[in-house]
């Protein structure tokens, strides 16, 4: 009778240990942090802010890159140069400068597409993996011009 009681207590102990082990394992998985949504949102805002900052940039006083886009559509000039050439050079220089100074060169490649009547496409580096993208709209008398940017890493 005494031995049977001991066996039952031992069995009970085994069950308790098993429950504790299962509980600890459950807690470990339950407390695994979820996907970093905040970091992703921050990166998306970063791309959007970069596009609006670069479009506001003035290569010479009173003329922004947004003006250059409009002038490029009309085959005009900006800052005494061909607007389309200026646009391509400045966009690429700014992207390269920002990528090396701030992003530490983490983006392997980038593409910029400007939807003009003769579209401009600027590409640099490789774009095989994850892509971050955003667009910027420029309002003109002839309608909207969209500027798309993709960053690849």
């Amino acid at each position, binding site marked *: 009778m005494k031995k049977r009681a*001991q066996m039952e207590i031992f069995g009970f*102990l085994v069950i308790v240990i098993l429950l504790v082990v299962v509980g600890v394992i459950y807690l470990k998985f339950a407390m695994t942090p979820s996907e970093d949504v905040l970091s992703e949102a921050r990166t998306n805002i970063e791309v959007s*802010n970069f596009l609006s*900052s670069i479009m506001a940039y*003035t290569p010479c006083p009173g003329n922004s890159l947004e003006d250059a886009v409009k002038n490029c559509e009309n085959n005009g000039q900006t800052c005494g140069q061909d607007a389309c050439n200026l646009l391509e050079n400045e966009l690429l220089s700014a992207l390269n400068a920002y990528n090396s100074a701030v992003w530490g060169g983490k983006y392997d490649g980038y593409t910029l597409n400007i939807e003009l009547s003769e579209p401009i496409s600027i590409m640099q580096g490789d774009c095989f993996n994850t892509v971050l993208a955003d667009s910027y709209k420029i309002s003109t008398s002839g309608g909207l011009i969209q500027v798309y940017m993709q960053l690849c890493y």
Partner: protein
Amino acid sequence: MIELIMVLVVLSIVIGLGMLFFFKANIGSIQEKAEDVCDLSSSVLLSSALAMPEMQCSFNTHTKDCVDTIKLLEFKDFSSSRDYSYHFSSNCRQRVSFQVIYPEPSASGECTDTTYPDNCNTWTIYTPSDFSSDFALYSTPASLYYPLEDEYRVGRLIVEVEM
């Protein structure tokens, strides 16, 4: 009787160990939550600081998505007052600054009345006292307006969160 006491002792040890693991995991989780709050706070600041009337560009009362660098020069001088301490470091201690990136500035260093506009590249608008060297850095691009030259340059807003 002795067996029962032994079982109870072992049981207590097992439950004690379980509680120890649980509380350790709980404390770790609370620390993670605190880091998340700071992370969130820095993200909010990255968005809200660019829209602060003390810094944002305004043309005949119309605001624009850029930061006026002359306003930054002035703002630096009085931002350490209590009101702004609450704004910038309410949840976590944060250092806030702006930096010019493109076109690459000819000189680096803090912008003051004497170095502005061409011999500097940074405006540190808020630094908590005894700010630690251990911090996490977050930034977002910002358009910086130079009213005297009527120029816009590409810069960034930097929020450094003390760890």
